């Protein structure tokens, strides 16, 4: 019956094109929305994910990585006091205004990290090294910010909040959720910078636990001794950040709904064409039944056609997304496209297509072969 499915499908090219258009539309919209959403959430949690720490101590009731309040850095001793803690360090997250060559200003997100240990340092350097940020007004910027900041060249001097900084390194692919360019500098420089974080204050304390230690237990224990802070595991902080942007701001929900809409519209187009196709071939299906085909043989024809449509439609949709990828990313939008994501979205698109064949299958199930004599 696969043979019949194939022959019939490709014989009616007009209908095939309409069905494929629906699936391509659905696949492109779903892939674009989901990859954009994951890309944005990836940016929102990038520093947390790339910092090799198990525990994050932040200000009380912190909503996400970008919205933190400073607290005394000396509280790091409480973290270090725990025998389960291998090491603890501090991290600053603050904001500043970078003066551009055209006289304008651009708000930037500043990460103050420890250049000696590398905790919180940029992880994908294309020029210089994180340790170059040590011992003065040095900063590292990300090449993806060039569209906003202008040409970034190692050795150039920039004015940040009226202080002069030398650009000593360039990272690649590090973006913030807010799309503000990310600038890295040493912890001490960031602290003396007189931004949101003042002398003796920090934004985060991060800790690495000894091998085999239960992260949740340590976080709970620390939380009881640090009542004025939120103590989270790495995964907990990632989850909290994602939940904030997704649920509380509705940004993620917007992406989610558009992706669902894409699936529904695509599914409706496929369902409609598959059903119209079934109705048009009712006489043939009746003939097949009269000739001795079972319902499952005819289901096989319908589902095979749906699967072929889904594979071709998703393949074309994926190719279009891949072709458009660099253009979209040049516009500053991060797309997260991985084989796993393609696999998951294909499964979703295929399921939608198969589900849309439900009414066709029901029609065939109740089709009486005796009607073939009356057609």
């Amino acid at each position: 019956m696969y043979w019949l499915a194939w022959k019939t499908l490709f014989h009616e090219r007009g209908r095939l094109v309409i069905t494929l258009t629906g699936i391509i539309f659905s696949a492109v919209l779903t892939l674009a929305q989901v990859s954009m959403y994951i890309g944005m959430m990836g940016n929102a949690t990038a520093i947390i994910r790339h910092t090799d720490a198990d525990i994050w101590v932040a200000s009380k009731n912190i909503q996400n990585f970008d919205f933190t309040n400073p607290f005394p850095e000396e509280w790091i001793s409480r973290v270090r006091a725990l025998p389960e803690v291998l090491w603890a360090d501090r991290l600053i997250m603050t904001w500043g205004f970078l003066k551009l060559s055209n006289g304008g200003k651009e708000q930037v997100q500043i990460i103050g990290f420890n250049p000696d240990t590398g905790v919180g340092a940029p992880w994908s350097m294309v020029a210089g090294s994180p340790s170059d940020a040590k011992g003065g007004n040095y900063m590292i910027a990300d090449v993806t910010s060039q569209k906003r900041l202008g040409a970034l060249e190692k050795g150039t001097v920039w004015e940040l909040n009226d202080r002069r900084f030398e650009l000593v390194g360039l990272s690649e692919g590090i973006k913030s959720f807010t799309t503000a360019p990310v600038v890295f500098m040493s912890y001490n420089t960031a602290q003396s910078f007189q931004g949101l974080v003042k002398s003796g204050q920090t934004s985060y304390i991060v800790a690495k636990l000894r091998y085999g230690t239960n992260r949740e237990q340590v976080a709970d224990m620390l939380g009881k001794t640090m009542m004025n802070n939120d103590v989270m595991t790495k995964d907990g902080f990632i989850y909290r950040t994602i939940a904030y942007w997704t649920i509380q701001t509705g940004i993620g929900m917007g992406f989610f709904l558009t992706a669902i809409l894409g699936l529904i519209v695509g599914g409706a187009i496929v369902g409609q064409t598959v059903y119209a196709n079934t109705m048009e071939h009712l006489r043939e299906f009746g003939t097949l039944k009269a000739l001795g085909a079972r319902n499952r043989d005819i289901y096989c024809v319908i589902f095979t056609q749906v699967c072929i449509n889904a594979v071709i439609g998703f393949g074309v949709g994926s190719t279009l997304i891949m072709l458009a990828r660099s253009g979209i990313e040049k516009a500053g939008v991060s797309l997260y496209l991985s084989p796993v994501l393609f696999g998951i979205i294909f499964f979703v698109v295929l399921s939608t297509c198969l589900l849309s064949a439900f009414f066709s299958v029901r029609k065939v199930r109740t089709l009486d072969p005796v009607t073939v004599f009356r057609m």
Partner: protein
Amino acid sequence: MDTILETKNVTKVYGEGDNRVVAVDSVTLALKRRELLLIMGPSGSGKTTLLSIMGCILHPSQGDVVLDGRTVSGLGSDALPDIRKRFFGFVFQSFNLFPSLKAAENVELVLRLKNHDKKRLKTEALELLDKVGLGKRSDFYPSDMSGGEKQRVAFARALAGDPPVILADEPTANLDSKTGMDVLRLLRALAEDFGKGIVIVSHDPKAEGFAHRAVFLEDGRIKE
């Protein structure tokens, strides 16, 4: 000639109460191998219903259908598709060919349905088309064929898998007079040369001249 298909007191009733319609009423018939049996009668006389019962497409309300010595009317709906595949070839008034398949592929479809050797599907389909005189048109789609040619393809399809019985519903209804005669001649040849038991339901008075036996159906009953 031995009997291949029998109906014994077969009755088919549709509806209940005031809507009760007796489509076929106590029909007893026997079809032998190499026989061309013609069932005639006016519209609404129950010819097609009887054909559907004989072809194991429709269950009779009463009575038995005996196929090659085995009573099949009591079998469940699940068993009937296999019975149809094994014993019957069907020819329909409107040909019912698959428009997306070429002539040979239409024949091949039934061979596939009957799980024939995949390597021989094409050869077998071509042989069958040759038998009905259409070997040279095997690569044509139904839309590029005349009514007579389509009906010949339908006969080749009915012969696929070598079923002992062929049931034809108004096989000449959509054909011109000359083509209709050719088709009837072909049916007679299929019965005599290939040993098939063939049942034709037809309004066409010309069919009588080609049949070995004709019965007349009126109000669901056989009129002697």
